[in-house]
Every structure is written in C-alpha cells, then in structure tokens.
C-alpha cells in the first residue's frame, strides 16, 4: 500500500516533468548552438530613442537597442545634418542595452528638431521633437512648484468634491443609486482614458519589442486581479473590524483614483518638462475640474457609512482625499524629473486595472443595495451621466 502510493507519486512527478523535458529538448534543437533549423530571413536591427534632453549647447539622446541583434551606433545628425558626437559608455549596444549620445549643438528654444542616429549598416533612425525646451534641473524650487501643481490638480479638487457628502447623505435611495452609478460611469471613463494614454505613450516612445498593447493589457489584468483579491480580504475584514463596508469601498475607490491621479501628475510633469507650458496650463485647469468629480466618487459610498459622524468622519474623508489626490504630486515629480516611458506605461496601466476593480466593487454594491436590480432608471441614467460629465470636462484638457 505504502509502496504503491510512493510509486504513484513518482509517476505523477514524472508525468509532470516529461512534457517539460521534451519542450526543453525542442527549444535546444531549434535555438541551441550550431542549430540552423530556423536560419531563415534576415534579422533587422532596431534602436529606439527613448528620451531627448536639451541641455546647455548640447542635445542628449538616450538610445536603446530594441532589435534582435547587437548594433553599433556610428553617426548622429540633427535635422538630417551630420554632427560630431560622443556616445557613453561606448557605441556597441547589445540587446536592450542603452547608451547616452551627446551631440554638441546650439539649439533654439521652442523650435522643432529631428534627431537622427545611424548604425553600422547605414540604417538611420529618427525621432522628432516638437519643441525644444531646456531639460529640468531638479531644484528645491521646482520640487515645490510641482508639489503645488499636484495639490491644485489632485488634492484640492478631490476635497471640494467630497463637500457634496452632506448633500448625498440626505437624498433618497433612488437618487443615491443614481450617484453610485454616476461614480461608476466617471471611473469607467477614467479607466479608458488611462488605457488610451498608456497606449499612446507606448506607441510613441516604446519599441515594438515591448509589445506595447499586450504589456498594457497584462499589467491591467494583473493590477485588477491583485486589487480584487486584496479588496475582498479588506471587505471581509471590515465586517469584523471598526472599518465599515462603505469606508472600505471608499478606500478602494481612493486607491484606484490615486493611481489614476499619479498618471495625471505624470502627464503634467512631462508636459512641463517638455516645455509645452501652454499645454500644461490647460492640463492643470482641465484636470482640476475633472478631479472634482472624483471627490463625488469617494463621497458616494461614504454617505451610507453607519456611525460615522463628526470629527471621525472628517478625518477619514481627509485621509481618503489625500490618498486619492496626493499621488498627483508624486506623478508630477516623476514626470518632470525622471520621465521614463516604460514606467509611465506601467503606472497608467496599473491605474486602469485599479479603476476597473473599483467599478466591479461599486456595481456589486449597487446590486446588493438595489434589490438585485441593475436596470433601474437611476442606475442607467447615473452611469450615462457619469460618462457624459467626464467627457465634457475632458474637452477642457
């Protein structure tokens, strides 16, 4: 009896390993050294200019080898005119390796530039910069400036939105459902907005080898699942702790919105960093209006919190507002000082996944509260109104 169980366990392990071993053999056969089974076609080199900085009398380009084969960067040009340049640490780039190309050039503020790099086989790669602007030097003043912008865009509007809480508290169940659905609509819009932004950034700045669309999809799903799992735990625990279910939901909404606002901060910081000042002014005004509605999203579930009165309520609201709003400050710092398209895409996709998770939680709550009914006029009109309000305020951005 004992022996046969051991035997069957051994068989089980073997049956798990054998297919895997065959897979390893197959891959070794196809890709292993000396194999010429798949020696078809010509691998094409590819480099991606991920970042261009305009510094004093110099243009600095961060370049990454994003192709399947090693390359040598041998020539630099500005506007298709060859320039002597330096490359640090050296011109040989293995797969995914980066280098800094320094091109001495007396550039002019606000003028467009095309940066070209040529590799050893004569292929030229180009990156267009719409308007040159001095690279931001991290200074205390600038750190403070970005913090201020982040506060304007993130914290204050969310706080203002939260002021609707007393109003929402007093309304009827029907109207309350309307506001919950409105929140779901707002968030749905934000999620799509984040995805669009993530895809834009990956399209413009990430090499094809990163599989931009799939990267975004994967990160959204991972973020959704991660937060869904931990959110369930949070709600379960809320039942037995002093944290009530509405607060737990509001907290999740705040986290989701916070991740989203981080993305907004990135956009503003990057826009200031890229010198599009007028554009970033619009961004700031637009996001501020837009984010007021996020306050409503947090306020809506909170309004049904039992036993939340007075100072405790105000303290919780302030904390939630900070969770939702302050990431805009961090986003602005990151976007302005250490912008990297890859991390931006990741953050935007995490934000989108977080928002989808919040939407699921809200919808489920409406369903539980609203007698298992989604199709009431309040819910439908609320969701529609949420999308519409967001769309209209987004035109300002």
């Amino acid at each position: 009896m004992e022996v046969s169980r051991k035997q069957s366990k051994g068989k089980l392990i073997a049956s798990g390993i054998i297919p895997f071993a065959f897979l390893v053999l197959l891959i070794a056969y196809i890709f292993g050294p000396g194999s010429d089974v798949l020696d078809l076609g010509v691998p094409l080199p590819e480099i991606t200019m991920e970042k261009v900085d305009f510094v004093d009398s110099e243009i600095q380009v961060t370049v990454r080898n994003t192709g399947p084969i090693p390359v040598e960067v041998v020539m630099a040009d500005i506007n298709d005119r060859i320039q002597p340049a330096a490359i640090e640490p050296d011109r040989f780039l293995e797969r995914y390796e980066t280098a800094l190309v320094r091109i001495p050039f007396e550039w002019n503020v606000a003028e467009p530039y095309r940066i070209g790099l040529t590799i050893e086989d004569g292929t030229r790669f180009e990156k267009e910069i719409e308007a040159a602007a001095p690279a931001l030097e991290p200074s205390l003043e600038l750190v403070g400036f970005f913090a201020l912008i982040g506060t304007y865009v993130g914290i204050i509007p969310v706080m203002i939105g939260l002021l609707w809480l007393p109003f929402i508290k007093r309304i009827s169940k029907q109207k309350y459902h309307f506001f919950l659905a409105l929140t779901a609509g707002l968030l749905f819009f934000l999620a799509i907005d984040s995805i669009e932004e993530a895809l834009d950034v990956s399209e413009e700045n990430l090499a094809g080898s990163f599989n931009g669309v799939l990267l975004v999809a994967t990160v959204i799903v991972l973020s959704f699942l991660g937060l869904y799992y931990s959110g369930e735990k949070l709600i379960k625990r809320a039942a037995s702790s002093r944290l009530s279910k509405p607060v737990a939901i509001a907290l999740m909404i705040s986290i989701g919105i916070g991740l989203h606002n981080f993305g907004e901060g990135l956009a503003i910081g990057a826009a200031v960093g890229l010198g599009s000042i007028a554009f970033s002014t619009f961004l700031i005004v637009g996001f501020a209006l837009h984010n007021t509605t996020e306050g409503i999203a947090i306020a809506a579930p909170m309004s049904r919190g039992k036993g939340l009165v007075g100072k405790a309520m105000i303290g919780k609201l302030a904390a939630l507002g900070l969770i939702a709003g302050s990431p805009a400050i961090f986003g602005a710092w990151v976007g302005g000082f250490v912008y990297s398209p890859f991390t931006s895409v990741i953050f935007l996709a995490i934000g989108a996944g977080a928002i989808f998770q919040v939407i699921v939680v809200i919808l489920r709550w409406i369903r539980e509260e609203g007698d298992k009914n989604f199709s009431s006029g309040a819910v439908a009109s609320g969701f529609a109104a949420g999308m519409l309000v967001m769309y209209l305020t987004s035109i300002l951005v």
Partner: protein
Amino acid sequence: MIASISVILAMSALYITFPESISAQQEDNVIHTHTGGIITTTGEIIDPVYTATTDPEYTEATIEFDPMEYLREFDYGEVSTLPDGTTLREFTIIAEDDQIMEVSPGIFFNVWTFNGQVPGPTIRATEGDIVRINFINNGSKPHTMHFHGIHPAEMDGVFEIVGQGGKFTYEFEAGPVGVHPYHCHVMPLEEHIVRGLYGVYIVDPKEGRPAADEMVMVLNGFDTDFDTENNSYAANSIPFYYQNNPIQINTDELIRIYVLNMVEFDPINNLHLHGNLYYYYPTGTSLVPSFYTDMITLSQTERGIMEFQYEFPGKYLFHAHKVEFSEKGWVGIFQVNDNSQQDEKSAEKVEYGS
C-alpha cells in the same frame, strides 16, 4: 636615488588615493564641434576620422578605398601602337556587386563596383586613340558599361546586357575632348548607378593642356537606408574626408580639377571655392573657358574642368553651396603651401597629367 624612490612612492600614493580621477583623465576623449566648441566625454567619439583599411581586425569592409590616392590617380591603360600608327589603350574592367565598403566612418555598405572601387578607375586617353575595354561581369546581376561620348550604337552598353560571368569588349575612338562619365546602364538604372557603378573618362586634346596639378572629383552620395535620399554626400565617396585630410597644393601652381556630378535623387549639386575663382570649361570640350566664377551648379552627370591657382598660402574650403550636402559630408579643404620654400619637394610630388 632616494629622490626618485620618494617620487615613485608619492605618485603611487596619489594613484591609490585618487585612482578614479587619474584614470578618468586618461580615458577622456575630446570632441571638436563644427562650431568650434570642445566637449569631453568618458565614452567614444562617433565622428572618427575615416581610415582606409581592409584589416579584418578593424573593419568589415572587403575593399580598400583611399580618397587621397583616387584624387590624382589616372589609368592610361596598356598602351600599344596599331599597324596604322594609332595608339591603342586597353583596359580591363571587372564589375562586382558583393563588395562591402566603409562609405562613411563606421558605416559598412554593400556597393557595386568597377575594379573594386567607387568611383571606378579614371580612364584616360588622348583624342583619336582607340580605347578597348575588356569588360568582365563578376557580379550576380547583369551589368554593362555605358560611356558618354561619340561611338557606334553597339558600343553604347545599353542593349548588349552582360549577364553573370559574361564578357564584352567595348572599342571606340576616344572623343570628343573633355571629361565624361561612364556608368552601368542596366535597369533599374538608378539603383545600378547609385550603388557605385560609375567613373570618370577623360579625353585629352592632342596638343595637351598646360602642365598642372590635376585631380578628379566625383561628386556622389550613398543612400544607405534605401529611402531614395542620400545619407551622405562627398567629393570622391567619403564624407568629410578632405576636410579631415586637406588636399596639399602650392601657391602659384595651376590646379586643374575634373569634376563630375553623379549624385542621384537630388536634382542639383554644385562646387564653391573659397578665397578664389576658377576658370570653368563645361564638359571640357573647349580649350577656352566659358566662365570665371567661384560657383558652378551641376545636374546629374553634368561635368567640367575647373582651373585656378592660389596666390596666398593657407587653408581654403571648397564645398557644395547647396549647404545641406556640405553638412552631410561634401566639404573639403585645400591646404595651400608656400611654393617658394618647397619647389623641389613639390616638383617630385606632383605628377602632371598626360
């Protein structure tokens, strides 16, 4: 003894204390920018000076091309006299299309070649000579040689396509006097030309031209990424070559340049000379110059002879005044040396044409 030991000790102590700063100083490279600025880098400079070499340790190139050698190199052929007293000049030209040339520092490009170089060899004869070209196509594609000039239709290198491994003998009387292009004339023509199948064919007048320091400049470019735009331009293939390696000439010595424009894709090219003007003989067909100028514009295969001499020693630029081309390599320098001090040297160095 004690002093030297203490110096060594002091140095090594210094090195142990500040190893980074010392090695960093050793590694720093300096870039001289086009605007005269200087920046230092711990990395590599990617505007290196072109070095003609086929040493596999340093290069992927399979052919060697030295623009300075090409500049003053004329191929007069294997000379013999026909029974009627006419001079026969025989040339062997081999076409290939699998060679790799360093067309700009660090850029290795598959060029199509006559006798393993771009431009092909400068073929030179005197008016009335019989020119016989034993053409061999060692390429993988069909090629021909089409000479500009006067010759029978079947010697025109257009309809008599020479296939892979094929041979053809072009024979015609040299004429008219002047400077002419030769190039492959197989379709797609633009590709066969721009890949490098072209060269200069000079016909000297019977009476000769005045003695001069003679040079050939083929204005050309390479489209290394196949987007029907040139990635680099030059006189004699290598961008910035004569800027980094100025052409040495002497004061009060007649300079004669045979100029041929072979640039494709761009409708015009030109040549501007600094600190001087030149006499210009369009196509070189007349012994009397048509212009005295410092700027001539040339269309595809347009060519001519430029003659000038410098009075003052020093550095003089010459370049395309279609400045885009000069910023992409078509720029050079004449280093004019004072003739009075080095008469003997220059007499040895300069080989006069014909």
